[in-house]
C-alpha cells in the first residue's frame, strides 16, 4: 500500500491551493505546503500574529527578531505585504476572509468535527493558540495528517474521542494514503494514492467512506 511521506503530502495539498488565494498554514506539517506551491501561482500567506504576505526565511544575519511567524520562525515580508494587530488578524480569520486554512489534526469526524488541540492525556498542560479561530473562520479548512496513529488506530472516525477544536468545520482531508472530502452525504474519497484501493483505505478508517465520484 502506498504511503506518502510528509513532504509528498504537503506537495499534494499544495496542488489544491488556487492562484490568488489568501492562505493560513498551521504550525508544523501545514507550513511545508508553501514549499510546494508552484511558482506560477501567487498566494498571499497570513500569519496569525499579524502579517499578510509572509515571505521566505531571511538570509543569515538579516533576521528581524520582531518579524516571526506563528511558529516563531524568522520570516520576511513580500512586497504588497503588511502588518496589523492580533485583533485585526483574528477578525480576518473569524470573519471568513481567508480562502484556505491548512491545519494538522489528531482526529476528524465524518461530520467535519476537528480535534487538534488536546488529547485526553492530562499529563501536559493544555494550549490552544489560534486553532479554534482558524477552524471556524476559513472558507475552506484543509486538514493534513497521517491516516492512522503510530499505533495504527484510525484518525478519521464517526465521532472524535478527543476534545473538539470545532464542530463541522473540515472541508478536505489530505492523508498519506488518500484525499477525502467532508460532504453533506458523508466522507467522499476524492483520490486514492498509487494503487491504493477503497477497501484498503476503508479498513484503516473509522467511518464509512463513499467511493470517488466518476467524472
Amino acid at each position, binding site marked *: 500500500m502506498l504511503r506518502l511521506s510528509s513532504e509528498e503530502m504537503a506537495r499534494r495539498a499544495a496542488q489544491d491551493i488556487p492562484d490568488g488565494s489568501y492562505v493560513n498554514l498551521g504550525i508544523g506539517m501545514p507550513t511545508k505546503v508553501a514549499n510546494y506551491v508552484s511558482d506560477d501561482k501567487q498566494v*498571499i500567506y497570513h500569519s496569525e500574529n499579524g502579517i499578510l504576505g509572509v515571505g521566505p526565511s531571511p538570509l543569515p544575519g538579516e533576521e528581524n527578531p520582531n518579524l516571526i511567524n506563528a511558529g516563531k520562525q524568522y520570516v520576511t515580508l513580500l512586497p*504588497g505585504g*503588511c502588518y496589523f494587530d492580533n485583533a485585526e488578524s483574528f477578525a480576518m480569520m473569524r*470573519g471568513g476572509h*481567508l480562502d484556505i486554512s491548512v491545519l494538522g489534526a489528531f482526529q476528524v469526524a465524518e461530520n467535519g468535527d476537528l480535534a487538534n488541540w488536546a488529547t485526553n492525556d492530562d499529563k501536559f498542560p493544555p494550549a490552544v493558540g489560534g486553532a479554534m479561530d482558524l477552524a471556524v473562520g476559513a472558507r475552506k479548512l484543509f486538514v493534513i495528517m497521517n491516516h492512522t496513529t503510530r499505533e495504527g488506530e484510525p484518525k478519521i472516525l464517526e465521532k472524535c474521542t478527543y476534545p473538539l477544536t470545532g464542530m463541522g468545520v473540515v472541508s478536505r482531508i489530505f492523508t498519506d494514503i488518500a484525499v477525502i472530502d467532508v460532504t453533506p452525504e458523508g466522507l467522499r474519497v476524492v483520490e486514492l494514492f498509487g494503487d491504493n484501493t477503497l477497501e484498503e483505505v476503508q479498513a484503516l478508517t473509522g467511518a464509512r467512506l463513499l467511493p470517488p465520484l466518476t467524472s
Partner: protein
Amino acid sequence: MIDKRVATYREAIADIPDGADVMIGGFGSSGIPLELIEALRQHGAKDLAIISNNAGVAEEGIASLLRDGLVRKIVCSFPRSAGSVWFEKRFEEGSVELELVPQGTLSERIRIAGAGIGGFLTPTGYGTRLAEGKETKVIDGKGYVLEMPLKADFALIKAETADIWGNLIYNTAGRNFNPMMAMAAAVTIAEVDQILPLGELDPEKVITPSIFVDRVVSEEKKHVTA
C-alpha cells in the same frame, strides 16, 4: 498574478443589482467615494439599502441617489444636516425607510460583521428609544443593549492610495467608516486617488490590508469632490 485594478468607475460597480445592500464610506464631506456613487446613480440600480453615516447634502453623493428614487432604506446615524433636502423629502413622503443607529454602534456593528462576531453588548442607547425591542442585559449593575452585525453586499469606499493588491492608505480624517466597511461587505470597491506598484506602500502605514478589498479604481476625475 493578483491585480485588483478596474479601469472605470462604471465597470467597478456594474454588477450591483436592484435591491442590494450597499455601504458607502464617508463622514460629512470627508472620505466619500463620490465617483463610485455617481457611477451607481447612472447605473440606476433600484431599491437599494444604503448604510452610511450621513444621507448626503444638496444634490451630491447619497442625496443624488435619494433624489433619483433609487433608495428603499437608509441605515445611518445622522441623516439630517444643513442641506439634506432630499433625505428630508423622501422621509416625509414615506418613500424611504430609516434605521437610526448611534454612530459608535453603527461603526462597531459594521466592524463585527467583518470580524465574524455574532453580536456585542453596548451601554450606548440603553434605556433610550433606540434600544426599544432589543435584547438587554445588566452586568455588574450596568445596562447593555445587544447589537447585531451589519453587513452588506457591496461597500463603496474612498482611500487616497492603493497598490495593485488593494492595500489602502487614507488621507487624515478621510478614514472614518471606510476601513470597517471594507471588512464587512461581500464585495469591496475602493475609489482612490492613485494606485502604486507593489512594494511602494510602506507596510507599516497600510490601514486596510488587501484581503478586505476586491477592486480598486482610479479613473481621471470627472466629478469634482468637495
